[in-house]
């Protein structure tokens, strides 16, 4: 997998895909969707699709893409390489969502939560396969959130495709398991080669699995919290784990609130014009007021 | 000049974490 684009800029998202096998443009295909790295507080979340002609499903199964959760990292790498070798009938595509994209989506003023981000990413990848000319007729998806609503949404979006959303889909459908292997291989590689955009000095990459309950990850987070900047962008600031460390260890930073009703502190203008002139704090001339300027009285 | 109030005066690794974008 060529991660150069991600290594150049890992603040947004980056999409990778295999060449489209010719047969997948001719024959009806089945497509599986899965993700890797949904839970960790570190690093990207990777969405992947994997597709092959219905007529070759048995060959895909023969590749032993069993339930990817049971496979070790090296077995996954080997299997992925095998899929690439026999790539004349299997295609894949990935969408790598950076921790920064995840955090800014979830913490933005208009909340864009993880489920919506996941759904939209899955839809984007299926559409991507269609745009590349793959004749998708069936889609199997591991569920995110309520299967029914997800299924309904996807079916509405792709009316001519038979959509199946199921929990543990990667254990039921080989093409979802294959997608899961792609996603996991990609995430492992992205995490291993993560380019810290911050020029950290004593950086150790001993952050464990990145899952919030992993003791190594917890130690790493505490070691890399910076009181003003929080964490390196490798960390998902929107994760509860990260936020509770920031609340303890980092400085408080105040942003301008959304415009509320009456701006506090600006009192009613008439409050300046009550009877005794002495109460009126000497307001600077409007030239200065309109520019936020006032006389300095102390340094 | 930041659009937020960092309520402290202290050293901070600005060069490491902050690259002004034009």
């Amino acid at each position: 997998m060529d991660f150069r684009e991600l290594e150049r800029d890992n603040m947004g998202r980056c999409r990778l895909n295999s060449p489209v096998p010719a047969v997948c443009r001719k024959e009806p295909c089945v497509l599986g969707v899965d993700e890797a790295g949904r839970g960790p507080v570190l690093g990207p979340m990777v969405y992947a699709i994997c597709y092959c002609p219905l007529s070759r499903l048995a060959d895909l199964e023969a590749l032993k893409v069993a339930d990817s959760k049971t496979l070790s990292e090296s077995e996954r790498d080997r299997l992925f390489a095998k899929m690439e070798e026999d790539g004349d009938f299997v295609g894949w595509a990935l969408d790598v969502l950076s921790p920064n994209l995840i955090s800014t989506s979830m913490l933005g003023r208009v909340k864009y939560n993880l489920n919506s981000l996941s759904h939209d990413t899955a839809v984007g990848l299926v559409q991507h396969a269609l745009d590349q000319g793959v004749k998708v007729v069936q889609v199997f998806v591991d569920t995110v959130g309520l299967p029914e609503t997800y299924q309904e949404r996807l079916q509405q979006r792709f009316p001519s495709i038979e959509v199946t959303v199921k929990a543990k889909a990667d254990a039921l459908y080989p093409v979802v398991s294959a997608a899961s292997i792609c996603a996991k291989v990609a995430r492992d590689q992205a995490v291993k080669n993560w380019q810290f955009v911050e020029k950290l000095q004593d950086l150790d990459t001993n952050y464990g699995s990145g899952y919030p309950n992993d003791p190594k990850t917890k130690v790493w987070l505490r070691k890399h919290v910076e009181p003003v900047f929080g964490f390196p962008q490798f960390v998902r600031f929107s994760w509860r784990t990260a936020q509770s460390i920031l609340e303890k260890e980092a400085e408080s930073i105040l942003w301008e609130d959304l415009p509320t009703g009456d701006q506090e502190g600006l009192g009613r203008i008439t409050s300046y014009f009550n009877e005794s002139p002495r109460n009126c704090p000497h307001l600077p001339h409007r030239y200065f007021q309109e520019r936020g300027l006032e006389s300095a009285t102390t340094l | 000049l930041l659009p937020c109030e960092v309520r402290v005066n202290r050293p901070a690794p600005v060069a490491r974490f902050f690259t002004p974008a034009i």
Partner: protein
Amino acid sequence: ARQHVFLLPECLKDASKKMTSGLMFVKLVRPCSGEGALYLFNMCLPQLFEIKVFKEKHHSWFINQSVQSGGLLHFATPMDPLFLLLHYLIKADKEGKFQPLDQVVVDDMFPNCILLLKLPELEKLLRHVTEEKEIGKKKYYKYSKEKTLKWLGKKVNQTVAALKTNNINVGARVQSAAFFPGHQISSDKEEDYIRYAHGLISDYISKELSDDLSKY
């Protein structure tokens, strides 16, 4: 340590190099209110600057490898010292007699006001606002309201001219915070300019003098 960000005129750049105490921040009176305000003295020339501060909520600074809360931005702009001298001349006028300047410019609230006596060409300046007498090589001064109003009238006219060249909107109060000086509202009448200029100058003189000036 707290750090401050200042916008200073270019000419001050080497002032602090020439003399260690080249630039001095002093607390002096604010004539419009009688309270204290911060001024800057460039001891090299010497020259007086007023300090304005840009203050807005939710700001802070990154200064090199540090963060500074508050995000205040200070401006130093040259100020006509006559506004401050006038404050003391009017105060001394109650005694109704001619006095030497060093007996007029005294203030136990703001003792640094004596720095004003170091400013160049004081005598020339004072002629705009006082009657003077010379007895045995010593000059004595008495506040002249008539001359002062004439002097302030000139200030208002100069300010009107500057408002026009700088396209300052003097008409209806600007609603949006992000005003656009370029959008000159042609309907601004001469009257608006004079009123606006009077208002600006009034930030530098006492309330009574502002009312007299308004009549004048």
